């Protein structure tokens, strides 16, 4: 039984991998049409970047579907596609983007000391961060969601449905705090991937945290899990840039709005995170 399951899982993983590589290929082949010699206000960040012909973008390398570095060294994901859209508007081809890994702890320092020009890395906009850097966007509203077994045998549609049921999360996380209000029987561990085994063997009926993490877990275990797709908190993801570079910030916001309007944003989503998550409405950019 255990062996059969292992073989089945391996086979599923292999099929999923083929599917994934097909998707990744689809995303990169029709390269963004690069703007030809765009005009920018002299002295602006855009002018400087267009002049240099290259841009340094910080992203995560370990966040499946958003920014994940494969063995070939090229990151793929929704954040990466957003970066390519912005670069193309500057007249910079995808090949000329320099990707730098930013983890949660070094994003503000990398922007402040100029290691990167912008950061697109599942980066939640909040007031503390706004004190040291500026945010364009949001370009996506993430939120806490629920992961269940494929087919959703318990029929869970939202946090209200887990009251009194067994749920797994990470000790000390905001997600744990949020779901606790709905009265589940919570068990906790130290990483979200540890929660998958109890979900598989039926010890819990749901795992909960931000939908982007859950989508990544579902994507890595094809055919086993699904995201309920009903986020009940809101985490606006923004693009980090140097504080008070208002011209650059509002230009990026314009680019995002154009990408919303002409379908490039939707295409970027569909080819990456859209594999697991529904296509959301693009969020209104916040021109603060």
């Amino acid at each position, binding site marked *: 039984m255990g062996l059969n399951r292992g073989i089945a899982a391996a086979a599923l993983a292999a099929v999923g991998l083929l599917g994934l590589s097909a998707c990744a290929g689809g995303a990169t082949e029709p390269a963004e049409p690069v703007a030809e010699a765009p005009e920018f206000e002299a002295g602006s960040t855009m002018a400087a970047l267009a002049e240099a012909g290259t841009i340094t973008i910080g992203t995560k390398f370990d966040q499946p579907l958003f920014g994940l570095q494969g063995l070939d060294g090229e990151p793929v994901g929704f954040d990466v596609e957003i970066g390519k859209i912005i670069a193309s508007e500057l007249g910079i081809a995808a090949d000329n983007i320099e990707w730098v890994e930013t983890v949660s702890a070094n994003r503000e320092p990398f922007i402040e000391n100029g290691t990167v020009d912008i950061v697109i890395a599942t980066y939640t906009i909040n007031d503390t961060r706004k004190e040291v850097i500026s945010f364009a966007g949001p370009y996506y509203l993430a939120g806490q969601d629920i992961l269940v077994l494929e087919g959703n045998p318990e029929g869970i549609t939202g946090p209200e449905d887990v009251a009194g049921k067994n749920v797994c999360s990470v*000790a*000390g996380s905001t997600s744990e705090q949020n779901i606790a209000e709905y009265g589940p029987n919570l*068990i*906790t561990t130290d990483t979200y991937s540890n929660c998958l085994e109890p979900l598989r063997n039926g010890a819990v009926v749901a795992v909960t945290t931000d939908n982007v993490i859950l989508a990544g877990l579902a994507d890595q275990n094809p055919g086993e899990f699904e995201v309920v797709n009903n986020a009940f908190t809101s985490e606006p993801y923004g693009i980090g840039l140097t504080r008070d570079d208002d011209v650059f910030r509002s230009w990026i916001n314009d680019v995002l709005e154009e990408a919303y309007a002409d379908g490039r944003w939707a295409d970027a989503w569909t080819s990456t995170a859209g594999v697991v998550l529904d296509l959301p409405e693009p969020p209104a950019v916040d021109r603060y």
Partner: protein
Amino acid sequence: MDSLIDVMPLYLEGFGLTILLLVVSGLGAFILGVIIAAMRISPLPSLRVFAVVYTEALRNVPLLLVLFFCAFVLPILGVSVGPDPKVGYLLLAILGLTLYTSPFVAEAVRSGINGVPIGQAEAARSIGMGFGATLTLVILPQAGRMVVPPLINVFIALTKNTSVAGIFFVNELFSGVQRATRDHGDKVLLMLLFAAALYLLITIPLGQIAGYIEKKVRVLR
């Protein structure tokens, strides 16, 4: 100070679970350890081989892997976690800690047995006592007095080892620190020191008890 009062319920729950893990798996490991030690010196070669393999296999594998096996592999092999995973995973953690600690108990007991002069066993055999009677009436009572300090060391190590169970869905004392730092991220050091103080509350009395028993049962040679 307010923050300490704030996290008190969290820490007390963890403290209780840590003591429960210590007492139940300590007892289990003691019983299992004495049995393994007896097998190690038994006249039957197959029992001796089993005891050696058991001891070497378990004490040379990290606790994390033993608990991982109990929490993740046993359910795959068909051991049900039960309707309440909090209880289910607690039992699996107790099983893991018991298995992991028992060879250390066995080795402590064996060292005590080795400390009993061989003449004692020979004398017992010469008056017609069998292996069981020799062991329980002559060897173990004398060995027991010598193994108090090493055994207490094993239980102090077990107290600290319970902190690993937090990864496997048991809200013991150390996992309380993770929750405490969510709301008091600016006082991480204080939260850790508080947890350390609670561990000391268990381990220092253990050392005191060891000293007391040792004095009481000392064999003068």
